[in-house]
């Protein structure tokens, strides 16, 4: 089962590590959002697009689209840009 690993910045919203079912990043993320609906507006903007300063990696590859595949052993990292002060 693929596993989501979230940045500590979101620790008030979602656990750091969650195993979920899904064959693509998008399907797996939908499963996360069902359990943690508040998370949606933190990751996605009004139009359902990934926020500009959020990055998703599948293992060591930057996600291209939410249709990118994930496997049972995938780790999906949700990170924020290292900017601001």
């Amino acid at each position: 089962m693929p596993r989501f690993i979230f940045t500590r910045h979101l620790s008030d919203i979602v656990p750091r590590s969650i195993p979920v079912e899904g064959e693509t990043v998008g399907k797996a993320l939908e499963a996360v959002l069902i359990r943690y609906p508040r998370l949606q507006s933190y990751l996605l903007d009004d139009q359902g697009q990934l926020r500009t300063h959020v990055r998703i990696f599948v293992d060591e590859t930057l996600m291209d689209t939410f249709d990118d595949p994930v496997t049972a052993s995938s780790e999906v990292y949700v990170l924020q840009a290292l900017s601001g002060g």
Partner: protein
Amino acid sequence: MDDQFYIGTRKGLFRARRANDGKWLIEGPEFRSSPVTMVLRDSRDGAEYAALNLGHFGPHLWRKMPGAAWEEIETPAFPREAGGTAVSMIWALEPGGPDQEGRLWLGTLPGGLFRSDDRGAHWMLVQTLWDHPERAKWAGGGYDDPGIHSICVRPDDPEAIAVGVSVGGVWHTRDGGASWALSGPGMVASYMPGPMQNDPAVQDPHRLVQCPANPDVLWVQHHCGIFRSTDWGESWHRIQVGVTSDFGFAVVVHPRDPEQAWFAPAVSDEIRIPVDDALVVSHTGNGGGQFRLLETGLPGPGAYDLVYRHALEINSSGTCLAMGSTTGNLWVSDDAGESWTCISQHLPPIYCIRF
């Protein structure tokens, strides 16, 4: 609530309150380390609202009912459509009329006006303003997108609302948002080419306020000076300050006396620091006929504080002013600005103050 106020900063929400010995105490922060772009206490029901702008994770809105804990409520959002836009910041939040309990008006970057009738549980874009053909002339000012920073609901007719847009002029509705019209002539946008300078749709009001006791009187601190209307925006006239710069962001008007207004001047568009490196407040008591500089207790020379548009406030009785700066300094005046007391020099950059 005249003896306490909120301070929205880059690093959280603070509260200032006057202790029994008369001194001001600062408490907080709540929303530790999060930028707070707007705050409101609704006197109709005691609800408190805080708008956060989390750099990576977008704008979010929280509400605290009396005796309850803060809870996150719905963030206003634009309808989903191809090429659609997204709220990037909540910049204005105002209650509806005294008899419209639960109604709120909210302004955003990029230029959305939203309404709620249930204390922010749900929000609806005011499509009539968003779809207005003249909106095509709006442009970004200090931000990439235009934004709504001022919402003035008439106390005597809460269906009549004036909205200030940077950069997009002042807009009026008399029917609760069903239809909109631009303010009349008089403001001048000297940054525009020739004849376009007088177009009401390209004006950059940095801040729009109305006198609660006489809402026909509106004051604007504009990018290109100070303007005043005595006919609820049918026409505007330029105010000559004389004693200092007429550039700045903030303006407050006395709650009962529409002739009195206070400003926090900076040098100019190109030089956004205090004139002569000394922070002052300028004040008129006769509708802009004359101004005086109020500087007792304010720093300088050697002061580089800038006062943002929401960071100068007056309480509802007109007895107390509070002012915060980008440098994290916070001052209070208990004598209508004649003298100021610095109550903190160590806050984060201050975005907004609200009694």
